[in-house]
């Protein structure tokens, strides 16, 4: 069972500190949600875990099963078992979705242990059908000309194909209509097992109607300020964030620019 441990994490971008001491532990089998108003550092946390080159970790640690994640390159983190479903996936012209996925799977499996083409196609067909994706999308260029909803579905397809130990879903619900949201949630729920932990970043409770988290954390001003169970998300939906601010004596301050 995998464990991702984040301790006293401080992260800066262009010299400005965004995360100011985040502590979090995600184990296989657990679904965590991080909620919070815009610009409080939620996306920064996901980018720092994956190793986005623009984000500088100034203090603290991230480990996966005791291994120092911060020492790893982005691709090594992925091969160690981390996955980030991105808010704004890149478009890559000339590289088909299928070729890309096969490269990613083979990168994990290593040389000499490549997945057979037949097995790959079978898995891909199966997962795409599960996510109600048009089979053509396997042969289209990676995310090129995909609608917002198609891109998000494609992120979940990658998640299901790559079977990571720990996944972070960065606002996977943004820009989705209710039908697409249900499909995305179905994909994530399908992954649920004791071997899979998930961190869901969102600022809407809506997604959590379809994916039930075991833990809910509220992030403000670059820190996790409150944690609880699914009922916390419901209260946030009903009452907003002001009661937490009042409870903790927090003044409004935006620490993160919207990407």
């Amino acid at each position, binding site marked *: 069972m995998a464990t991702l441990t984040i301790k006293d994490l401080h992260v800066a971008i262009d010299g400005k500190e965004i995360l100011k001491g985040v502590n979090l532990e995600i184990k296989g089998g657990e679904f965590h949600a991080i909620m919070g108003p815009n610009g409080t550092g939620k996306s920064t946390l996901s980018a720092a875990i994956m190793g986005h080159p623009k984000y500088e970790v100034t203090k603290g640690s991230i480990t996966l099963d005791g291994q120092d994640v911060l020492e790893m390159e982005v691709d090594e983190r992925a091969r160690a078992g981390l996955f980030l479903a991105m808010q704004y*996936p890149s478009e*890559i*012209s000339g*590289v088909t979705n299928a070729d890309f996925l096969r490269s990613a799977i083979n990168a994990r499996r290593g040389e000499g242990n490549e997945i057979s083409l037949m097995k790959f196609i079978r898995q891909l067909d199966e997962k795409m059908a599960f996510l109600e994706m048009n089979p053509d999308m396997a042969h289209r260029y990676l995310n090129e000309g995909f609608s917002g909803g198609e891109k998000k579905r494609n992120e979940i397809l990658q998640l299901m194909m790559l079977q990571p130990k720990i996944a972070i879903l960065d606002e996977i619900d943004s820009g989705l209509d209710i039908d697409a949201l249900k499909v995305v949630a179905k994909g994530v729920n399908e992954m649920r097992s004791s071997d899979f932990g998930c961190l869901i970043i969102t600022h809407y409770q809506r997604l959590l109607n379809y994916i039930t988290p075991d833990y809910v954390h509220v992030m403000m001003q670059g820190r996790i300020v409150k944690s609880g169970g699914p009922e916390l998300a419901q209260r946030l939906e009903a009452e907003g964030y002001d009661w937490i601010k009042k409870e903790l004596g927090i003044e409004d301050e935006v620490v993160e620019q919207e990407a």
Partner: protein
Amino acid sequence: MIETKLPFDQQYVRSFSEGRGEPDWLLHVRLQALAQAEQLPLPKPDKTKIDRWNFTQFSTHLVESAPLSSLEELPEEVKVLIDIDEEQKNVYVQRDHTCAYVSLADELKEKGVIFTDLATAVREHSELVQKYFMDGVKVNEHRLAALHAALVNGGMFVYVPKHVQVNVPLQAVYVHEKAEALFNHVIIVADVGSKVTYVENYISTCERSEAIVNIIAEVFALDDAQVFFGAVDSLAKGTTTYVNRRGITGRHARIEWALGLMNDGNTISENVTRLIGDGSFGDTKTVVVSRGEQVQNFTTSVIHYGKHTEGYILKHGVVKDEATSIFNGIGKIEHGASKSNAEQESRVLMLSPKGRGDANPILLIDEDDVTAGHAASVGRVDPTQLYYLMSRGISKTEAERLIIHGFLAPVVNEIPIERVKKQLIEVIERKVK
């Protein structure tokens, strides 16, 4: 100082032409062209200075090669391009100047398709060749065109009769072995309402070869005809190449080009499509990889004369090491070519800080009622794309490889012969490594 006197005289050209049993008209063209070659200036590719390049000095005009008794005799790198087991092949193989093998399916022969080496064509179809030889590219355009006409010593002729649809690709492979100077001339005539796909390779059998290659390809798509022209050039380091591929369209004709220009030597490439007929269409896709210290210039023009003509230019170039690549894209709409559309996109991917890449989009418009557009960029591999691919476990090297292959895919995917496509991918792999 570069020697400007030409190494071959009237006497030589006359005896060469007579020795091949060429008709008088061709001897006449050769002699006139030779006289003009002495006077005419070199072409002036924009932003590349070529007056010190050697295009004209060589000591041997012709080397002899034996025809092949079987394609099995071909070197491995050439053999892989051809489906040897296919009985009804449409394949032409030329070793240096000499036709080594030619085969055309019976069905196409019966329909009157001509697919043969130029030397045979001028003997057997003299009038037809005369009509088109140096008609798309004029002898007096510059010294290299004139020299080419005077000294043509290789090439082939393709003619597709009216309303004949050739649904399988015709393939030509020009193998450079030991020729010091190859003047290769290709003519493709798609008569009214016909359709043809032609794919050529220029390939060297050695890694380095001091040679001059001067290529002219003339493509004529007559009214309502469609021509697809694919090419993969992979001539060796040390070979200086001038290649001019020119297309002329009739009414509602279409010419599409997919050019993978992968030479390792200095190269001047010109690809011009003249949209003469109303409603005609030209689409040019070019991909290039430059490496080492090679200097290359790729000028692509689509010139609109007819009304309602459409022209598209796409050029993607990768520049490595200390190579220099200049990409000039010219969309020109002449007065009277109303309702025409000229679009172009040039992108250069720089893999090394020491390389030089230039993308120069040019629109020349002499008519009001038209549409036109261009996009150009020169840049490095996008770090956000790299991050995205790496976040899926793909190593940086492999991620870059995927992005580069994706960048060159517009031509790779168009090549209609699977073996040639595979070879192009391998050449790209080798060049970007």
